[in-house]
């Protein structure tokens, strides 16, 4: 066994890879060899740290120094200064957004300090392609405890006691779900993981799959033991190639150690797990559609009952949970349900991972106890709004969720409080919008998405979402009439009540929620033919403010329609009949002389 005096952790998550972390690893390895440090310093590729905005991220132990936005040119300096001489490279440290203070250690960065990482406990701290690193952090001990000391019924009871609710969106109690499947008769049952994370703006499941795949496998095995399944499937989006690769490695390593397969850990319990790659259909996130897809058919939902716990995959009793739900399970059995239930609110226990995106200073993954206020997530962890603009709304729960305005930001977040506000937890995507986002446009965006993804099986969803989208398009084009608002509300209510599956039933939420809190924006589009946020181009007019214009001509040169004219060093003018409202001129103008409205 080789011991090293230092470990350099380079993030190999999708976010950091796209900002160049592969190259960084390569150069780092060369540099270490060049300086004769390759026997002293170990290079480790980890999964996602959840702070993708700051990527590529490099952490140096034992100091725990957190370097961010590291470029290839910085590597030689890190090696010769820090790794050789022990001097931290100050300029690469994270800078606190407001105070500009440099923060040397991981633990002290506000983005992480406020978090409570249960699901993401290992992400970014271990090498996901080495099972030993998972085992070093109590990995598979929960499973060992379950297999050696508990009966399946005790496992179900412990799960119920923990109060864990499904993290995929609906929030159904996991223990109860397991109980239904465990009570179904039959020698053949399936355990299934929904890793078809399709909500735009959510990537916590990807992060767990890439950064800590064994926590998912362990959670699934505990579930399989509880319900009496000996086979399982993980249904992963094909858009996540790295996640699929890491899962394959994890399964092979677990099998090699006898932690997966026949007679796990020398007990009577056996279970095989397979990976199924999704083929690109959002509706497959719905459990009955997902099972149809595993069976090799069109992934269309089926009416429930029968529930999967009775008649699921290949008509056998099946239990299906998502990645985040399963990743909670090992912790519950390692530390006990009581310990788990100390976090969270009365009806929503534990933590929730939110994907913070949109107009925020710090974007990334934030895992927080249930019951925390949205304001804390957005302004403390997320660091507030970019470019000092004003907060307008936060969209939560993806295409099934809704927008929450400023006045409700202090509500404690849990499954039930969000539903009361007309949104839902969904998978936990939080997209923050500032004053430059138009709420009608956002509603149209989501409806366009669900309409495209509607599988077409039931009429309310297939036809209803189409009609709603047409009305929204009309409003954005400045052709809306006052009755449109009531039509949207009626249609929305009908679809909610009559659609076959969760996709259809929640599709109107983005529209209904924006109508509830931002009705005035709809009215401005319809009655005044104005888009207050300046987004809907049909309702905008571009103008040059003569006092600010220096006559530099940059706008005229960039205008693709030749709509801008003027003498050099004299204020220019826009011919609105020629203007195609592309916005190129605004981007080029250095003097803020062009306005839209």
């Amino acid at each position, binding site marked *: 066994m080789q011991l090293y005096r230092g470990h350099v952790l380079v993030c190999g998550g999708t976010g950091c890879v796209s900002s160049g972390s592969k190259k960084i690893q390569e150069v780092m390895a060369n540099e270490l060899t060049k300086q004769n440090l390759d026997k002293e310093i170990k290079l480790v590729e980890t999964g996602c740290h959840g702070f993708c905005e700051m990527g590529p991220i490099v952490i140096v132990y034992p100091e725990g120094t957190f370097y961010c936005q590291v470029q290839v040119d910085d590597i030689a300096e890190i090696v010769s200064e820090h790794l050789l001489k022990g001097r931290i490279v100050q300029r690469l440290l994270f800078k606190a957004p407001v105070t500009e203070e440099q923060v040397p250690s991981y633990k002290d960065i506000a983005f992480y300090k406020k978090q409570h990482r249960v699901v993401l406990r290992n992400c970014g701290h271990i090498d996901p392609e080495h099972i030993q690193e998972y*085992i070093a952090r109590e990995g598979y001990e929960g499973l060992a405890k379950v297999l050696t000391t508990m009966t399946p019924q005790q496992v179900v009871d412990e799960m119920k006691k923990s109060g864990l609710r499904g993290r995929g969106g609906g929030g159904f109690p996991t223990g109860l779900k397991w109980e239904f499947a465990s009570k179904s008769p039959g020698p053949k049952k399936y355990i299934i993981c929904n890793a078809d994370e399709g909500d735009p703006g959510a990537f916590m499941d990807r992060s767990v799959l890439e950064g800590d795949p064994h926590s998912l496998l362990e959670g699934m095995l505990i579930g399989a033991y509880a319900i009496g399944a000996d086979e399982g499937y993980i249904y992963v989006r094909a858009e996540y190639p790295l996640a699929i690769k890491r899962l394959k490695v994890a399964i092979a390593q677990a099998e090699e150690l006898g932690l997966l397969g026949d007679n796990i850990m020398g007990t009577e319990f056996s279970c095989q797990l397979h990976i199924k790659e999704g083929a690109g259909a959002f509706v497959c996130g719905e459990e009955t559609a997902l099972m149809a897809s595993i069976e090799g058919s069109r992934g269309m939902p089926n009416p429930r009952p029968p529930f999967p716990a009775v008649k699921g995959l290949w008509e056998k009793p099946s239990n299906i949970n998502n990645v985040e739900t399963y990743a909670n399970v090992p912790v519950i059995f390692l530390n006990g349900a009581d310990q788990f239930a100390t976090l969270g609110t009365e009806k929503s226990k534990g933590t929730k991972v939110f994907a913070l995106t949109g107009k925020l200073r710090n974007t990334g993954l934030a895992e927080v106890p249930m019951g925390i206020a949205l304001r804390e997530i957005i302004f403390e962890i997320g660091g507030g709004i970019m470019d000092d603009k004003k907060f307008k709304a936060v969209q939560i729960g993806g295409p099934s969720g809704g927008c929450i305005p400023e006045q409700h930001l202090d509500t404690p977040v849990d499954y039930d409080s969000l539903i009361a506000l007309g949104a839902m937890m969904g998978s936990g995507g939080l997209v923050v919008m500032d004053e430059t986002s138009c709420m009608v446009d956002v509603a149209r965006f989501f409806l366009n998405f669900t309409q495209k993804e509607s599988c077409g099986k039931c009429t309310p969803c297939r036809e209803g979402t189409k009609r709603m989208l047409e009305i929204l398009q009309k409003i954005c084009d400045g052709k809306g009439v006052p009755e449109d608002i009531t039509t949207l509300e009626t249609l929305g209510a009908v679809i909610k009540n009559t659609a076959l599956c969760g996709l259809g039933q929640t599709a109107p939420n983005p529209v209904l929620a924006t109508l509830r809190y931002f009705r005035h924006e709809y009215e401005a589009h319809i009655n005044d033919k104005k888009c207050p946020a300046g987004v809907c181009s049909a309702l905008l007019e571009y103008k040059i403010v003569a006092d600010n214009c220096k006559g530099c001509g940059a706008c005229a040169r960039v205008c693709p329609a030749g709509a801008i004219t003027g003498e050099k060093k004299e204020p220019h003018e826009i011919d609105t009949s020629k203007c195609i409202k592309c916005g190129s001129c605004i981007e080029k103008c250095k003097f803020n002389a062009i306005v839209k409205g």
Partner: protein
Amino acid sequence: MVIKSFEDLKRLKEEAKALTGIRAGQGVEIIVGMGTCGIAAGAREVMSAILEELNKRELSDVRVTQTGCIGMCEKEVLVDVVRPGEKRITYGNVQPQDVSRIFSSHVINGQIVEDIVVAKLD
């Protein structure tokens, strides 16, 4: 290796912990002066000897870090040993051959190697 019992898993965990222990930030800390003066006086050789010792003794809970020049250049190579909750002991003029006894008496058994100590700090 195939895990056949809870005990097997625990054994594997202890082994694995040794590999990742330094990320936990506990245990004895050894600090080597790696300023220009330190390196000139042979700090790299001392560092190599320390790592050799670590591996030989399979000490996974010892953290080795470096520091820059602390202003006692004529006493380089300087090596500090900090045992949790004890004084920080600075050894001076450390040669690679001194490393073994620093480990056997101080790092492991808490007995300070008095003849090469240059400072004791709280």
